[in-house]
């Protein structure tokens, strides 16, 4: 579905990514793991067209993403939950959800009602402005907003940041359900344990390069990665 080949990218003169390659197959859940500042978000921003790669290739469902503007990439079927939420502060909760909603590939799987069912708090706050929500509520809104675009591939960058344990558990359950329905997901998260249960593949990024890939079993058995990324 999504293939990234030896991607390099950065912010102006500052090079951040050097060699990132991985693939996400249809129906798969893949994670990007790495310490702070290693380039996970940068990878995602490059895929979304928010940064232009200096070299490498990105292909989504047969379409080359290099050089496409972000909205074309999103229209191709990638839904983003960005780092730091970035909900629209001047829009109400409901407007946040419907403003960019879309059903580009047949009947929508996610509707307003569905999102409200997933996050009942949002329904209570539907008339509040985006910036009046608590941090966690904003996070839910950002997830709901991405779901409302009914993407083929869902990208979540630290989507559980600031969520209460109970809600976090719900999100994991929800993602598991989505996966069961065949939704492809690319994930960045610091809670590794649930990722182990959920994901098919893990991609470890260090200093802008992919240093390790493998499935959950490999991850738990590889002593080096284990020490670095799992609780011992």
């Amino acid at each position: 579905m999504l293939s990234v080949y030896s991607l390099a990218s950065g912010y102006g003169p500052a090079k951040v990514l050097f060699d990132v390659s991985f693939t996400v197959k249809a129906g798969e859940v893949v994670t990007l793991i790495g310490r702070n500042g290693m380039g996970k978000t940068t990878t995602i921003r490059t895929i979304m067209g928010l940064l232009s790669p200096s070299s490498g290739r990105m292909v989504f469902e047969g379409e080359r993403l290099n050089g496409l503007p972000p909205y074309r990439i999103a229209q191709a079927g990638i839904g983003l939950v960005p780092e730091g939420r970035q909900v629209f502060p001047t829009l109400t909760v409901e407007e946040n959800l419907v403003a960019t909603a879309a059903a580009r590939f047949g009947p929508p799987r996610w509707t307003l009602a569905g999102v409200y069912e997933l996050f009942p708090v949002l329904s209570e706050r539907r008339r509040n402005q985006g910036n009046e929500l608590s941090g966690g509520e904003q996070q839910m809104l950002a997830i709901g907003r991405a779901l409302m675009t009914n993407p083929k591939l869902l990208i979540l960058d630290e989507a559980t940041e600031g969520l209460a344990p109970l809600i976090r558990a719900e999100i994991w359950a929800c993602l598991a359900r989505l996966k069961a329905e065949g939704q492809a997901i690319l994930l960045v998260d610091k809670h590794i344990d649930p990722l182990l249960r959920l994901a098919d593949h893990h991609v470890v990024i260090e200093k802008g390069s992919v240093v390790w890939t493998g499935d959950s079993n490999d991850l738990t058995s590889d002593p080096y990665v284990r020490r670095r990324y799992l609780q011992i």
Partner: protein
Amino acid sequence: MSTTLLIVQILNGLQLGVLLFLIAAGLTLVFGVMDFINLAHGVQYMLGAYLAVMFYGLTGSFVAALVLALLASLGCGLLLEFVVFRHLYDRDHLDQVIATFGIILFLNQGVKLVWGAAPLSLPIPEALSGSVVLMPGLLYPVWRIVIIASGLAAGLVLYGLVAHTRIGMLVRAGATNATMVSALGVDIRRLFMIVFGFGTMLAGFAGIMIAPILSVEPGMGDTILILAFVVIVIGGIGSIRGAFIAALLIGLVDTLGRSFAVDILRLFLAPSPARTVAPALASMLIYLLMAVVLFLRPSGLFPARGR
């Protein structure tokens, strides 16, 4: 000071208010909602008036002039957007200020080159030229009623568009975080272009409608621009309702101030100083009003939430 005069002046004040709102409407959209400081709004208003005069000269029909001038305004707006504005959306407000100031200089001078420096005018369409008696002793020009109606209509259209359509939501969202809107699959640049064109058209529309009562001359948009900003700021940036109410407030305060300042000051002062102080005070009045409003409510009367 008789009661009829007072009533008449209140009506006049409201009418001036609607007139101001008509002019401020486009600015509310582009500046208030889209968050783009467009100082060129005033010259776009001027351009609308000039285009109408020109097309009237060519066709001899007001309606044809109106339609053609609107289209031409839209065209100019899109052209400006394409050449200049689209490169400035994600820039600092101050970059927008200096670029649009450049456009003011250019268009003011351009208009003078093309149409000459002398004031021009546009006649009122024949059918709407007379006056009607609103109440005994109060003759009211029909065209002013038309202006009021179009001001109200512009307000309603704008309100509906911004508050209740998806385009409105997206524009508001884009104003705070264009990147994110785009990353969610919306071509925000194109949307901004359309909205900007529409804003220019509104400016042009105001110019066309007002041309029959005001002189069409180079620089006519400059003072108006300041007034329009005053309206928007008093109302609270981003709030269409606020702009509307602020426009009426300014219309009233200005009109009543001008009409009755002398009489009121005479209560405290001798006639001759009253006569000299009052007009100075009347000129200052809207600024005084703005200062007081902002002192009491630093984000205008109806602060937009979430900014």
